[in-house]
């Protein structure tokens, strides 16, 4: 039973992949799933049957992730697909995003919760526009780690020179971005070099295999454990015989560490109190940190409701109605300058007006296009907004949870924009 015991101590790593049909992404994901036994016999059998019907030879792994009928019929991936696998060390969630249609929108969605971005580069073609777009989005969404897999090394005779050239080209481009941790791995997804097994064809490479990197990369610091942020989701008041006067604040810790006895301040009221208890169904705990969901009680009766936030008096978020945002537009109806939208941020919902579109970014050249003030689907640009009531926020760079917003169209109710607070 040691194996399942180990399973209970596993960490969770979320990573995102993107790319087009022919860069070997499906092969790579297929290999990770195969080798970790996450593909089952009936799925393989099903794939074989489907391939025979379609008159194709071999197994097309893309059919595993392309779950919708229209995707299979057209041979394209429309939407982000989530895949799961585990090794004895970690559980992995892959957000697999399509390479062509609505590229930016899907990539941004997949990247928003990822610890790591897996970038595939074809060793024969080197750094291309798609690589640059992908790297830019990884940087914009502040994915903490990037793994650059130089694939199809078998087609360049496992040459170190080709690998080094791509590495230096990528670094040169990435110097304009904010990518904290980049790892380069020469692989062949098809032949299995450096994916799970170390390659015998590339003695010159001394780094880790892809799976070793995924299993061991340090993700403990990916959450903010410095700035205490506790947005209230719901007030818990049982008013039952057993708990007649209980009043607790349910939410998830979005930053920092909260301990019993800590002095806290509530926003927006600014009133102070101390933490009486941190309650969970399994009993009281004395310390809670991101991303735990808990229920906190205070020693004073303060009027607190959903949308309020518990913080520390000496470490407060920004409190403002004027907010600068990098926005990715996600809807066919383009952003309306001076338009009004519903905005969601932590557990707050309010309204905002678009004051100004400052510039649009050409995501291939990274140039700022200051004259263009049209934001259409898949465009990224900087805007300033004014909200109807103050938000309590941090910059996205400092805290992804308290620095992100979505905009909702008030007529269609669709989520139309995803924003990162500057």
């Amino acid at each position, binding site marked *: 039973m040691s194996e399942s015991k180990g399973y209970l101590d596993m960490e969770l790593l979320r990573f995102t992949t993107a790319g087009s049909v022919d860069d070997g992404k499906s092969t790579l994901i297929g290999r990770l799933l195969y080798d970790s036994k996450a593909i089952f016999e009936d799925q393989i059998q099903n794939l074989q049957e489907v391939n025979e019907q379609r008159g194709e030879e071999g197994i097309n792994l893309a059919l595993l992730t392309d*779950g919708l009928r229209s995707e299979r019929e057209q041979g394209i991936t429309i939407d982000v697909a989530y895949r799961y696998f585990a090794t004895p060390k970690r559980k992995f969630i892959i957000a697999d995003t399509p390479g062509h249609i609505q590229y930016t929108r899907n990539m941004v969605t997949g990247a928003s919760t990822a610890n790591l971005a897996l970038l595939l580069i074809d060793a024969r073609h080197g750094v291309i526009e798609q690589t640059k777009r992908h790297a830019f989005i990884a940087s914009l969404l502040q994915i903490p780690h990037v793994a650059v897999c130089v694939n199809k090394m078998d087609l360049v005779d496992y040459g170190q020179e080709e690998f080094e050239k791509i590495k230096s080209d990528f670094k040169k481009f990435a110097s304009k971005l904010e990518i904290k941790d980049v790892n380069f791995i020469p692989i062949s997804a098809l032949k299995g070099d450096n994916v799970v097994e170390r390659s015998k064809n590339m003695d010159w490479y001394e780094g880790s295999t892809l799976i070793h990197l995924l299993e061991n990369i340090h993700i403990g610091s990916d959450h903010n454990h410095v700035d205490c942020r506790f947005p209230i*989701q719901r007030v818990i008041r049982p008013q039952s015989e057993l708990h007649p006067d209980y009043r607790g604040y349910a939410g998830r810790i979005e930053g920092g560490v909260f301990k019993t006895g800590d002095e806290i301040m509530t926003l927006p009221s600014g009133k102070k109190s101390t933490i009486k208890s941190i309650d969970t169904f399994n009993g009281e705990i004395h310390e809670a940190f991101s991303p735990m969901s808990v229920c906190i009680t205070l020693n004073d009766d303060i009027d607190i409701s959903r949308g309020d936030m518990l913080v520390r008096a000496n470490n407060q978020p920004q409190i403002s109605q004027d907010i600068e945002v990098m926005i990715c537009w996600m809807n066919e109806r383009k952003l309306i300058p001076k338009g009004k939208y519903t905005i969601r941020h932590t557990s707050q919902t309010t309204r905002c007006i678009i004051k100004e579109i400052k510039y649009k970014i050409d995501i291939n050249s990274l140039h700022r296009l200051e004259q263009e003030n049209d934001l259409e689907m898949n465009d990224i640009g900087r805007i300033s907004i004014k909200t109807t009531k103050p938000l309590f926020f941090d910059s996205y760079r400092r805290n992804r949870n308290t620095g992100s917003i979505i905009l909702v169209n008030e007529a269609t*109710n669709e989520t139309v924009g995803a924003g990162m607070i500057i």
Partner: protein
Amino acid sequence: MNSYNLTHLKVLESEAIFIIREVAAQFEKPVMLFSGGKDSIIMFHLARKAFFPDKIPFPLMHIDTGHNFPETINFRDKLIKETGEKLIIKLVQESIDNGTAIEESGLNPSRNGLQTVTLLEGIESGNYDCALGGARRDEEKARAKERFFSHRDEFGQWDPKNQRPELWNLFNGKKNIGEHFRVFPISNWTEMDVWQYILNEKIAIPSLYFAHKRQVVSRDGVLLAKCAHISLKKDESWEEKTVRCRTIGDMTCTGVSESLASTMEEIIEEVATTRVTERGGRADDKRSEAAMEDRKKEGYF
């Protein structure tokens, strides 16, 4: 390594609790679908955790096909009695009697598809604006494309090509009158996660999940348990086998599998080494390549 690390099960648990609380906050009248299977038992457990020490602020709803294993129903009734939470039961038989659903004919007529009718009727008659479900993305490929907050139109239909993007932990439950949402808090859990969680949290589950002797018949590669709703073909006969359920659904379409696993530890060992998916034993999914997608579009959960 610092001490501020959570295991993957704790992260998944926290994510699910967060989403269940969002549902309570964003919707006026939510309901939690409950089938008596392990996923809905976990959902129930997570909902109790989310609002502790308060009760769950919404009812459970069971769409009872009348084709359930008796063990499931006994377990359901005991669980509700012990916890004092509220359960609403909607009978597929009533939809059939009212003429809104029409019974299939054949050797093992499935009421699986009819559930959708009763479910939509239940949602409409109760004026529920959100139904929480225990579906997981790893179960089936159409489910892999499902959002946590899944929008349904007035007819309860799912439009997979026009789903709202879902980013970070910001969930958008806004809708027009008459529309509703399906919300799936354990989307990111795998079958293995569910079993590990049950073991870890010492959650009681129906005895069907553990190995027991039962009369079965093998049909189209699926082992079906003996019950009043299944008729034998000429060349078939009942035989006794030691089996257990990997998933629990209707007796007419849920296959059992031969197994000797009689403890949680043995089940986990079996899940870790098994080479067939959980839904591989579901006759309802075998009907076509896109069976699940089609049912979901019609309003299945």
